[in-house]
């Protein structure tokens, strides 16, 4: 399967925007990815090995956190995994007097 690397993580993936892996599950794919590119690990996972809260994973167009098997979901060669850091923000609250 193909893992799409977002802009901020490409420097830690050899400058590549996509990487092919041959794992059987999503977790296996991420493991293979970080084995090949160890610098990616700290950007994707906490020290405890959990996916960082602002990192979203999409298997094709499906949010992995809502798949029944989550990261244990089996993957096929034609599947894609997109790594998408969250994007949000906003101006400070205004005090109305």
């Amino acid at each position, binding site marked *: 399967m193909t893992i*799409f690397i*977002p*802009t*901020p993580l490409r*420097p830690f993936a050899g400058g590549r*925007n996509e990487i092919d892996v041959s794992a059987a599950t999503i977790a296996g794919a991420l493991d293979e990815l970080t084995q090949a590119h160890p610098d990616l690990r*700290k*950007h994707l996972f906490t020290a405890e090995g959990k996916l*960082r809260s*602002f990192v*979203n994973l*999409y298997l094709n*167009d499906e*949010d992995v956190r809502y798949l029944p098997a989550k990261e244990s979901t089996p993957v096929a060669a034609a599947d894609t995994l*997109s790594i*998408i*850091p*969250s*994007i*949000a*923000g*906003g*101006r*400070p*609250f*205004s005090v109305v007097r």
Partner: protein
Amino acid sequence: MSALLMPRPVWEAIRAHGEETYPHECCGALLGVATPNGWRIESAVRAGNTRTDSAHNRYSIAPVELVQIERDARSRGLEIAGFYHSHPDHPAQWSATDFAEAHWLGCSYVITAVARGTATVTNSFRLCGATEEDKQFEWEPIAIDDECIGREPC
């Protein structure tokens, strides 16, 4: 210091977006290519603001929309270079919320102040640093075609 290169139609489009959504925040992605001195923006893509509960001072882009934006960018040989949003009746300066929610290291965050429905100042801030823990925003000038605009925000 990096600089953000942007065609005038894109500059006008992101500012117009902020005027259209006023008094709510607008948001979108900037697609472009990396140069040694910063991003060269080719186009802006409007995105939906999922923070309908507090759109006057919050924005959020659904990750699934970013999957589609990134797919489109790839097909055009472009990258997601950054994002833009507006600050209704507030300066074009990043907030604590903007900073806490910024995770696209190396990308440019463009903010437009929209005062009473009219776009005023537009500033760009590059998210620098090597990790989430040492990230910092650095102001960068915006070059519209051949004209360099923008000033250091207060």
